[in-house]
């Protein structure tokens, strides 16, 4: 099976979906002649033309507004936000409008709109190229939010997103783009939205995580196994709707949970996961629900030392595993 990086899987999937369905169009900054800031759309304008690969002005509200208008009129637009940090001007178009189309028209209209949002830190991106933006979207009824962490899931979930009849936010972690290589089947397949996956089975505790942290958690779990701790790693993959059955099943079985996320903790994905566990696993818990997250400070710092201090790392995860395992 061919090996690909995440960015290669994303690129191939977009190309395949555009060939499969001519209503799929791309909108974004520098996605045409420049091929996208991460080269996700390299060569697309040559193949599909400027009518389907649309270079937009530097205005995210316009990108998402245009995409929404096209979506309710029969197209399947795929918008690219250059960096998640720049998505905020489009919040009204996404949260205030796109999320409410189906409800607001009593099901008469839907918004089959996909927005790719490269996010996350650990890339020396500092204040404006490192943000985790998932919570606002994951909080919003009417939106679907996926966060694939592997090339396989990147392809399968992006295909599911593009084919969905409702708006989907696809969060791609920038650091994984060229960092993670894995097998990707050449043929057509999708990964179902709303389904988490056990990426590493174990019996002593469950790590619930997503995005780049999945890979750090897997490294830490591997190191923990040498100390005799058998750690399960559950990759959420979809952040809205959360796969509460998978979370409850795993945590009920292991009795201990460590939630790891790159985002700050207050009112975050980890808060919701913890609530689900509290509601569904209380009588199976052998330890308090634990979380490993960055501290509550506004941005990802630029200084390498401070960025390292901010981000969870395999070592920090391993230390948290050990502490929880020995409890």
């Amino acid at each position, binding site marked *: 099976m061919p090996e690909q990086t995440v960015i290669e899987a994303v690129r191939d999937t977009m190309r395949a979906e555009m060939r499969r369905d001519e209503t799929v169009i791309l909108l974004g900054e520098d996605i045409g002649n420049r091929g996208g800031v991460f080269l996700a759309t390299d060569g697309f304008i040559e193949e599909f033309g400027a009518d389907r690969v649309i270079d937009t002005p530097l205005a995210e509200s316009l990108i998402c507004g245009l995409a929404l208008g096209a979506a309710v009129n029969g197209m399947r637009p795929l918008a690219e936000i250059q960096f998640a940090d720049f998505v905020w001007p489009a919040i009204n178009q996404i949260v205030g409008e796109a999320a409410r189309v189906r409800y607001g028209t009593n099901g008469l209209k839907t918004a089959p709109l996909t927005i790719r949002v490269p996010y996350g830190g*650990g890339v020396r991106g500092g204040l404006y190229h490192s943000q985790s933006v998932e919570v606002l979207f994951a909080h919003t009824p009417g939106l679907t939010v996926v966060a694939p962490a*592997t090339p396989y*899931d990147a392809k399968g979930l992006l295909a599911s997103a593009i084919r969905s009849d409702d708006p989907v936010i696809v969060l791609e972690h920038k650091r994984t*783009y*060229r*960092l*993670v290589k894995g097998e990707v089947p050449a043929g057509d397949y999708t990964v179902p939205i709303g389904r988490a996956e056990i990426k590493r089975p174990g019996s002593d505790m469950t790590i619930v995580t997503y995005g780049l942290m999945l890979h750090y958690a897997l490294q830490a779990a*591997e190191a923990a196994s040498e100390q005799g701790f058998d750690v399960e790693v559950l990759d959420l993959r979809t952040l809205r709707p959360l796969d509460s059955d998978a979370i409850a099943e795993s945590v009920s079985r292991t009795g201990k949970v460590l939630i790891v996320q790159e985002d700050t903790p207050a009112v975050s994905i980890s808060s919701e996961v913890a609530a689900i566990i509290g509601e569904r696993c209380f009588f199976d818990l052998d330890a308090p629900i634990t979380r490993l997250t960055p501290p509550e400070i506004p941005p990802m710092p630029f200084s390498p030392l401070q960025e390292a201090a901010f981000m969870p790392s395999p070592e*920090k995860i391993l230390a948290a595993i050990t502490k929880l395992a020995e*409890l």
Partner: protein
Amino acid sequence: MVFKIELPQVGESVTEAVIGKWLKSPGEHIDKYDPLVEVITDKVNMDVPAPATGTLTKILASEGDTVPMGSVIAEMETDEAVTQADSRSPSVPATPSGAKSETSPLAARIGTLVQGANVGPTGGEFLDTSLSPPTHDTATESAAPSQSNNEKLRFSPVVTRLAAQHGVDLTTLAGTGLGGRVTKKDVLTAVEEGITAGSATMPSPRVPRAAPGDDQVIEPTPIRRMIADHMVKSMTEIPHAWSAIEVDVTGMVEWRAANRQRFEQEHGVRLTYLPITLRSVAAALKTNPRINSSWVDGKMVLKGAINVGVAVAADEGLIVPVVHDAAGASLLELAQQLDGLIERARSASMTLDDVRGGTFTLNNTGALGSVWGGAIINHPQAAILTTEAIVKRPVVISHNDTDTVVVRSMMNICLSFDHRIIDGAEASAFLQAVRAGLEAVDLNSEFE
């Protein structure tokens, strides 16, 4: 000093680059920020600036080489001391499980991390984020409960639940958790090793200390639990019906009083009413086969053997030793068998053969003073008979149209029967057959 020049991070997602043309040669003097080498990535092409002032001494990556970000591409001699971060102490391997030679399908799909793909800022100073030592002070880690001497007495929800489920006394377990905390694993290990209440290691039911007026919760012994399950099974599966008659056992009482001493001297066995009753019961079972049966999978199974269980109150609970082939035995044989069985039951030295194969049960509740009972059938049998206390009572006897009140020894016998198999008529016929057998005993009877 020697300074190692590393390939700096360019762009947010780039992990490797191709070395282009070197703009300086070994031995050449370089000023800080002088363009040193061209690098080509799939995102950008750029010149790498010299990280310090000094002399280029060695080129380690040649033109055309593909090099991961952060790897050393050259060495230089600096004019002054320049600090260089060297923070690699990989206590956690940089590759996840997927990088192993035996790659599982799941691991292959998860993928591997490109080696050396950690980033450094433009300028060459490099700090490896993912491999830097843990900095717990700054990262937020939600607090697990701190260590305390009271952990032994704090139980997690799952520990409490499992302990109740399996009857484990948590105060007897040695916790392996922090501060001696009893963990889920500790409970499961205890269950596996059979350390539950009432097991061999803790023989008697333990009564937790309770304040006056508080309810006491007692863990049942395994035998008690078995009895409980058996009773529930019988009562829920079998539709019970009850019938009772009274028996004039004056003759039997007289016979026993007259023969007891001789019998015990001759045979060395105690003579109680039980073998006499059992003899009548066994004979009645022979002529009433439906009483000696079982309801099995929607069919009535009439038993070929007549094996009568006799309920015995032992220390740990109710035991029902079985007298096998009771219908073919003489009074002496019955007395001898019963004597041995009861002795073994009370001294807890029963064999498996002593308790299995019963087809009907006889319970002498009269020994405890009871005068009436509605026993629960010993599943899967079809009926159980209790013989109640023998009581002297005034009884009206009609003889030649004259009613006379006389004092007689009377005993009630009560039958609980499975109404799927046995109706009232059959139950009564059986009871009357037992009565007839018992009332036929008088001073002239010869059993031996």
